[in-house]
């Protein structure tokens, strides 16, 4: 029994880091534009198709260059999305315009993926496959890499936000757009940079989950909402909060199987989301609702 519980916790931590990365990506866009990007699960899927479908399988480029080129193309796409949707729509009377805009963008990306790469799912054979034993528990190499990369992404972002001029500007914009604008920060440009970075994080998630979920049109289904829950539970708007929230959801939903049928795993995550929204909207680490 102890071995089973350890396995649940380890697997929960592993999947929790994926939720955490998604939560970080949500948080970045929220902080910079005050909007939620509901097309981000499609951006994750698009990143996987560009990397695996085009860079690796079609063009046969080696992995480091392929990763760089995918980051570049997704970063540019992210900036274009900000320029085309977030910036024009964020000042409209209601946020619903921007939310609808991102949802429709998601639909368009999904159909573009089907038209460009076709509906047949595929994978990268041998890419980050294999497992490592920790005592009696098993963990896949992909999950270990996900944990390391997630921590690196969170730390790098935190350093970037604290010590670089652009990062400081991003924090200013998150705090008060009008004041930032008066202080000479180009808010529009800042939102483009932030969305570009968030698209790159989508690509990081995409590349990391290929060995786990394969490249399919439904690659990011379900992790999108769990990532949103991670953000809320950890404290929306605060990057380390997304990691805490992600790990919390991952472990709790796995351990819930000890008391509930496994089919209620999703229910557990979303009940947690509602409980936090009602009881502690600032989450574990957040300072504001």
């Amino acid at each position, binding site marked *: 029994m102890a071995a089973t519980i350890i396995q649940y916790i380890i*697997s929960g931590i592993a999947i929790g880091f994926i939720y955490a990365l998604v939560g970080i990506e949500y948080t970045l866009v929220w902080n910079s534009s005050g909007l939620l990007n509901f097309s981000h699960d499609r951006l994750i899927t698009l990143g996987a198709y560009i990397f695996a479908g085009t860079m690796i399988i079609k063009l046969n480029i080696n992995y480091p260059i392929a990763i760089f080129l995918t980051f570049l193309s997704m970063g540019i796409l992210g900036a274009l999305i900000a320029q085309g949707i977030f910036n024009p729509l964020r000042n409209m009377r209601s946020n619903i315009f921007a939310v609808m805009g991102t949802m429709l963008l998601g*639909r368009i990306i999904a159909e573009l993926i089907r038209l460009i790469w*076709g509906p047949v799912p595929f994978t990268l054979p041998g890419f980050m496959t294999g497992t490592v034993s920790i005592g009696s528990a098993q963990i896949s190499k992909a999950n270990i890499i996900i944990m390391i990369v997630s921590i690196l992404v969170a730390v790098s972002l935190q350093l970037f936000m604290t010590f670089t001029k652009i990062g400081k500007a991003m924090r200013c914009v998150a705090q008060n757009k009008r004041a930032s604008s008066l202080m000479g920060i180009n808010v529009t440009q800042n939102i483009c940079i932030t969305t570009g970075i968030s698209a790159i994080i989508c690509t990081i998630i995409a590349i990391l989950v290929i060995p786990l979920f*394969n490249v399919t*049109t439904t690659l990011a289904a379900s992790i999108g909402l769990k990532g949103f829950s991670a953000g809320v539970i950890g404290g929306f708007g605060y990057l380390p909060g997304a990691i805490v929230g992600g790990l919390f959801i991952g472990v709790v939903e796995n351990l819930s199987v000890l008391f509930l049928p496994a089919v209620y*795993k999703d229910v557990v995550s979303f009940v947690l989301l509602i409980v936090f929204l009602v009881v502690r909207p600032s989450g574990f680490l957040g300072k504001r609702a």
Partner: protein
Amino acid sequence: MRKKLVAIILVGIMSLTLTACGSPANGGSTETASRGGGTETDSKEAGTGWSGDTIEIGLISMITGDNPLNGERMNQGVQLAVDQFNEEGGIDGHQINLTILDDQTTQDMAVTCANKLISQGVCGIIGPHRSTNAMAVEAVIEAGGVPTFTGGTSPKISELGDQYLFRCRASDSIFAEAAVAYAVNKLGSQKIGMLFNNDDFGTGAEGVIKAYCEKNGVDYVEQGHNTGDKDFTAQLMQMKSDGADTLIIWTHDAELAINARQIYELGLDVKVVSSPGVTMNQVIDICEPEYIEGWYGITDYVSSSDDPAVQEFKNAFMEAYGIEPELYAASYYGATVILLEAIKAAGTDDPTAIMEQVKKTKDLTLPNGTASCDDVNDLIHNVNVAKIVNKEVVFEEAISVE
């Protein structure tokens, strides 16, 4: 000005998204046949003759949505059957015209598509595929009186009692019973662990397998999951601690591939019998060979079967599209052949006469089995067992269930 521009762009995007569903897709003609400019009875005596130069049939496919690959194979299978009939001169000198609509794999769009096809005057409809979509269009097609063929396998479809709705694949109760009977009788399983998707597809099989185990005194444990789940560690570890020696997995392709990887990674030493997905390239191609080695799959269609009907269909399909067909292509090819044979036998494109002919279908050899219509409009009553050996689907045996 900027707000106006944005509003125009948004309206444009929404219009594009909405119209995508109703547009005829590739492979189908956009023309609609007139039934002589009036009602059926205006243009011809009901039950005799032809209403126009061409015979109009429709296909409700899943071109967009979460199941586009299966939709594409469905289109190809139906188109192949139509082309074959047309190349042989059509039916009674009339060419068959296929109109393909996209239901986006949603129920509301399936109803819209069915209404559109019926208003266009088609004499038969292939699809929609999913059981839930078939049940959604059932009232429309019964009111419209057009024979319709679904591949939805939920046992609930048989309970609808709609005389115009036919099923062109074996029911889940047949699939599931074949799976558990094979595990118990042929593989010597002592304790069955059932992993099922918590939708109509999975729970239908779960009910049948649970009942079989209770009736035959076989130990049984079960764990469910939802469509879109990405981690099955908890369910699999539970199976391990419960001591199941055989897993029966009933779920969709994406979840099946993830289960395969995790069963291997968690080192579960079990026999596995699966729903049809494991016999299809879209699952096999995304699994490392060791993940699914030795798995058994229960399916409608196995390409490696030496049945002449299978080989003939496989060769024709490969010649037309350059790829091997799978169960969606085979099942809907079969459904189209049943419909077209019924039109031929009826000698008319009157839908009611065609429905009556479909009901008379008996021992019609198809790539996915032998079609005979029973009293609940189920046409196929046999399934195949296949084994995965080094990523090849090897035909094991055919099982008929009455």
